[in-house]
């Protein structure tokens, strides 16, 4: 038995425990915070006086049947470079081959994965990750600190174009490229700060942040953070052609648009508990939800990655199928580019926001399955949410704002969106009717899903779907901080960035909530987005599928799943 030196608790943990016992902190926030500070999930649950809950992740302790092939209906997309994954489906294909340093369960608690443990300095600026011993890549190499350093270096290289550049903003520096924008402004570039990632020894990596951030472990389970082999670029930088991974499965067959077959590595090669399933097959049935349902109804597949809300009545009639509903922070936002006319005028953006009746839109477009949103992209289900005064639809005020902005007779706006998600189309049609009384004529530019993703960050006014993230600040870092790759509204507000820095750096939950209130208020006031609701998501399996629980991000992790 190997001896482990007991790790010292982070100095903030006793205070947080005292807050929990005094009733100033709820258990969910307590668990989340102390696990981020490096306390193991099992210990954290014990400190909170709870039994660990089922996470839906790698729970191989239960007794299941070995063998079998799990067939899942899901789009099969190209997956050349995990660092630039832009769809959860891509990461699901790769997730059983590649692994992450941490793993965030469906209970929003982050646990060790390839990183066996981590420690953080009192000021939350120095993070030390200890790697799991004995993890072997499928080519026989040992996972070591070089792999982790290599991945951070790639993610934060602006030439790669990874969204991680926004997520790990506290590790990057901004420099002038020497080029100019059309308006003469210098074009800035963000890249890894020298020395921000340090190899301590073969199994230890240290991150040096330029400002405190609490959510680093959670960020490491963001789907483009899969750890690739340290020679990924040397091997051609195409994961589907050289699928070297540390996971329990290897890639057997991969045909974009058709299927992706994964087969289990020998148990002796894999560091974790042996997975039950002999193989996993993703079958691409195209974009038509009816095809996915038909495949499930006729038992051609064992599960469907996601079931649209419009399919629920049909699926309820299938006796061999179980539907799982998860409340998430998945949403869609009608975002306005603040650099383009007429959205460079705050009053126009606020007028658009005032047309929204969130509850009505939720009922019309998503059968009431979800929660109304508040135009600031932080969900009440996320632990860092701070309640703000309720919003209400106000057409009179919207008309007044438009008149002040120079549009006394109203104006016509073109809203671009993709047609791949049925609820997007239903929603914007209802939204169009809500805008009409304020004098806003909304022209809908509905385009095929892939075509929209070509222009999602370019059109002045677009409706974009955003996936679930366990923390509000994660989405805000990715989508609203100045200059980050996924900032589709081109929003740049130093006051917002500063407030976000404070929220991300504050350990005390009550204090952080105050900072979050400020963050949310700024974003809401600046009217960058009109956000209708947070939606529940649904997945469906046959009753044969055991041990599967839907993750709010629809991440797949089938190591603990078996066929009954």
């Amino acid at each position, binding site marked *: 038995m190997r001896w482990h030196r007991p790790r010292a608790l982070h100095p903030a943990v006793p205070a947080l425990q005292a807050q929990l016992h005094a009733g100033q902190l709820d258990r969910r926030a307590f668990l989340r915070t102390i696990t981020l500070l490096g306390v193991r999930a099992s210990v954290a649950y014990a400190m909170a006086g709870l039994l660990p809950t089922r996470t839906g992740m790698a729970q191989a302790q239960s007794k299941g049947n070995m063998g079998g092939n799990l067939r899942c209906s899901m789009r099969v997309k190209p997956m050349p470079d995990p660092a630039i994954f832009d769809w959860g489906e891509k990461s699901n294909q790769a997730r059983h081959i590649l692994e992450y340093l941490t793993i965030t369960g469906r209970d929003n608690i982050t646990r060790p994965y390839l990183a066996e443990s981590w420690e953080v300095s009192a000021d939350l600026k120095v993070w030390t990750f200890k790697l799991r011993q004995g993890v072997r890549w499928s080519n026989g190499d040992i996972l070591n600190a070089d792999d982790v350093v290599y991945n951070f270096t790639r993610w934060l290289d602006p030439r790669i174009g990874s969204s991680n550049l926004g997520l790990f903003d506290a590790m990057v520096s901004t420099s002038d490229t020497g080029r100019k924008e059309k308006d003469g402004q210098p074009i800035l570039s963000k890249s890894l700060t020298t020395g921000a990632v340090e190899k301590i020894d073969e199994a230890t990596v240290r991150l040096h942040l330029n400002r405190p951030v609490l959510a680093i472990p959670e960020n490491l389970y963001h789907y483009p953070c899969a750890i690739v082999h340290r020679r990924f670029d040397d091997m051609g930088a195409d994961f589907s052609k050289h699928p070297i991974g540390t996971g329990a499965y290897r890639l057997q067959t991969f045909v974009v648009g058709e299927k992706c077959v994964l087969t289990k590595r020998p148990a002796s090669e894999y560091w974790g508990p042996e997975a039950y399933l002999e193989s996993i097959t993703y079958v*691409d049935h*195209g974009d038509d939800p009816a095809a996915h349902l038909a495949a499930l109804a006729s038992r051609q597949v064992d599960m469907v990655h996601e079931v649209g809300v419009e399919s629920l009545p049909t699926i309820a009639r299938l006796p061999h199928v179980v539907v799982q509903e998860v409340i998430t922070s998945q949403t869609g936002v009608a975002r306005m580019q603040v650099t383009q006319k007429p959205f460079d005028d705050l009053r126009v953006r606020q007028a658009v926001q005032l047309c929204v009746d969130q509850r009505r839109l939720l009922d019309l477009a998503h059968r009431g399955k979800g929660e109304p949103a508040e135009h600031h992209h932080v969900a009440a289900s996320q632990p860092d949410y701070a309640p703000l005064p309720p919003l209400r639809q106000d057409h009179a005020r919207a008309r007044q704002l438009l008149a002040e902005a120079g549009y006394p007779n109203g104006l016509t706006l073109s809203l671009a969106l993709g047609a791949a998600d049925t609820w997007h189309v239903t929603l914007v049609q209802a939204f169009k009717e809500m805008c009409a009384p304020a004098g806003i004529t909304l022209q809908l530019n509905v385009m095929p899903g892939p075509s929209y993703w070509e222009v999602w960050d370019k059109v002045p006014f677009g409706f974009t779907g955003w996936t679930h993230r366990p923390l509000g600040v994660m989405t805000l870092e990715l989508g609203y901080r100045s200059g980050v790759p996924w900032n589709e509204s081109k929003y740049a507000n130093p006051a917002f960035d500063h407030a976000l820095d404070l929220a991300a750096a504050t350990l005390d939950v009550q204090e952080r909530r105050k900072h979050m209130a400020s963050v949310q208020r700024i974003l809401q006031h600046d009217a960058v987005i009109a956000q209708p609701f947070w939606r529940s998501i649904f997945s469906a399996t046959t009753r044969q599928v055991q041990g599967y629980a839907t993750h709010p991000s629809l991440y797949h992790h089938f190591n603990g799943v078996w066929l009954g």
Partner: protein
Amino acid sequence: MLRFLGKRLVAMLVTMLAVSALVFLVLEVSPGSVATKVLGPYSSPEQRQLWLQQHGYTAPLALRYVRWLDRMWRGDFGESTRFKTPVHAVLWPRLANTALLGLSTFTILVPLALTLGVLAGMRAGSGLDRLISLGSILTTSTPEFASAVLLSTLFVFRLAWLPGTSSMTDGFAWQELVLPTAVLVLADTGYVTRMTRASMVEVMHTAYIRTAVLKGLPWPVVLLKHALRNALITPFTVVMLQINWLLSGVIVVEFFFAYKGFGALLLEASLNQDIYLIEACTLVAVAVAVGTQTLADLGHLYLQPRLRTTGQSGSGAP
């Protein structure tokens, strides 16, 4: 005969050349647009410029067209941006899948439609004729997406007799061909039946049939030896034209049943602006259309011997 064949082949080549020029002009006239589609919208101007130079897009338009034509002729269609693989690697298997679907459809459709058409046209105005005509109109006027939903609801969701999708993930499975084939047969049988009926009615009113009947020939001999051969000339051309319809007109059926065929590929290529795949699909579709038209003309020539002496096809004029 040889002269006719030569003429048809020249016409075929000219048509293909004209279409290829059109495809090239529509899709490749703007090099910048090609580079953006291949490298993606996030590529930098420097990357696009480098790519254009590496791939010969700085050459004059005419020279680019000749080079492009040469590549196409050699079967080098380029690399698909959607599938991240050479176009031919995805194109030919998909074409073969659609050919399989077409074969199964034609195996049922042709005998069924011809039989029904002959039966209806044999005694125009009879009860059987009216019944067949009504059925033909009903099935022809039902769009594929509607019959696909109806059949799927019945045989997949209610009776659970058949698989709901036809992806053939685990290799060929005839059961997965049943529903797409049924939808296509339903959609097209009525049309071919009506054409056969019309042709049969026309033949049954000709002088040589009347003469044959008056000569006292047995009814089956009149039908099979004299009426049918002449009545089948029009349906033959119609059936040949249905090959084109099958190739690109099956998009709805392939999409609905997730069948990995040529129609679904064309749709996916268009939605994803996969420029090289669109070019290859278009050229293949045109080649098949022109090829089947030539085959139809040859068949016409065989069925109408007098055309062999005049060297004409299709008109039937003296």
